[in-house]
């Protein structure tokens, strides 16, 4: 087998960075959320569906927050309205947190990968 002279001498991956710990931290976030095994039994299917539903609710919740902030910035909300809106969104966030805990799901568990479009959240 001939190797072209410009082929890299080895095909071991080189990893090169001046900021190892920073990248370890960030990459761990990405890989830690992956369970090593999914057993499809009744409980897991339920959990899988819970994940799907909660992910969608979480997505909408974040949209609502963004919209609320925009309205607030836009100046067309009275102080009372801002307060009420904020309280309602606070409760929604707390409720969702409660549901996540009920199903044993962490923040990282809630996401949907949409391929080229990116992740939902």
């Amino acid at each position, binding site marked *: 087998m001939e*190797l072209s002279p410009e082929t890299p001498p080895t095909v071991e991956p080189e990893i090169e960075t001046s*900021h190892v710990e920073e990248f370890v931290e960030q990459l761990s976030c990405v890989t830690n959320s992956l369970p*090593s095994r999914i057993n499809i039994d009744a409980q897991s299917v339920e959990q899988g569906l819970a994940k799907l539903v909660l992910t969608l609710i979480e997505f909408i919740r974040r949209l609502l927050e963004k919209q609320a*902030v925009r309205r607030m910035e836009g100046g067309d909300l009275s102080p009372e309205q801002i307060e009420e809106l904020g*309280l309602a969104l*606070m409760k929604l966030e707390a409720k969702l947190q409660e549901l996540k805990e009920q199903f044993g799901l962490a923040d990282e568990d809630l996401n949907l990968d949409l391929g080229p479009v990116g992740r939902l959240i």
Partner: protein
Amino acid sequence: MKLYVYCLVEKIDALLAPVSGVSGAPVDLIRLDDFSFLVTQLEGDSAPPVTRDNVLAHDAVVRSVLNETTPLPFRFGTVQTESHLRSYIRTHRTALEAKLAVVRGCVEMSVKIISNLDESDLETTSERTEEGPGGRFLNEKRREILGGERRAKEAREVAAWLKEQVGSFVRQEAISLCPTEKLIVAAAHLVVREQVTKYRGGLAIARNARPELHFLVSGPWPPYTFSNIELEFKTRFGVS
């Protein structure tokens, strides 16, 4: 009997040297129709567990042919019967051949970029004394959201800049923006082997030009990011 499948290869008649695979088991080269696969014959039905050794073994096996040809790596944990594998080839022949053509002669390089954007300069609206918990909540969200938008904007800008720097050496790119808060760009580049040195050179210049960004460069890899042909399986980094 099930096969653990590592990768699809072309132009290989035999393994140059024996290589050991998942769970320390031997690796065989099998030919199905006119495609070749690196596989391990499994005892039983289960896929091997996700362990450090197995993950490294999977990559090592795919890598073992990288000097001679560019394989299409399978995702870790691909277990099939031979007949399923055969029908898979039959139904996806065209797409597989197209993918092989795309990655032929290339390797994958990976660039990840961290930006430590300081959010403390985001102004907060003046606090009114009568502001209650609801108002405070929204103000905090406002800070977060504006910060997020700023990060997204920076990510897009950095991704475009990166493309300018190394684009001429890259056959195909797959970019993910803001996979985490600090990791604003995660790019996979398909680079022709002979251009890897120039690609690295381009990157080195780029890194010096922007010391405020932190880079992680890894490679060469087999083209994991550019192999998949199924739209319904989405990777975390937005590649179909």
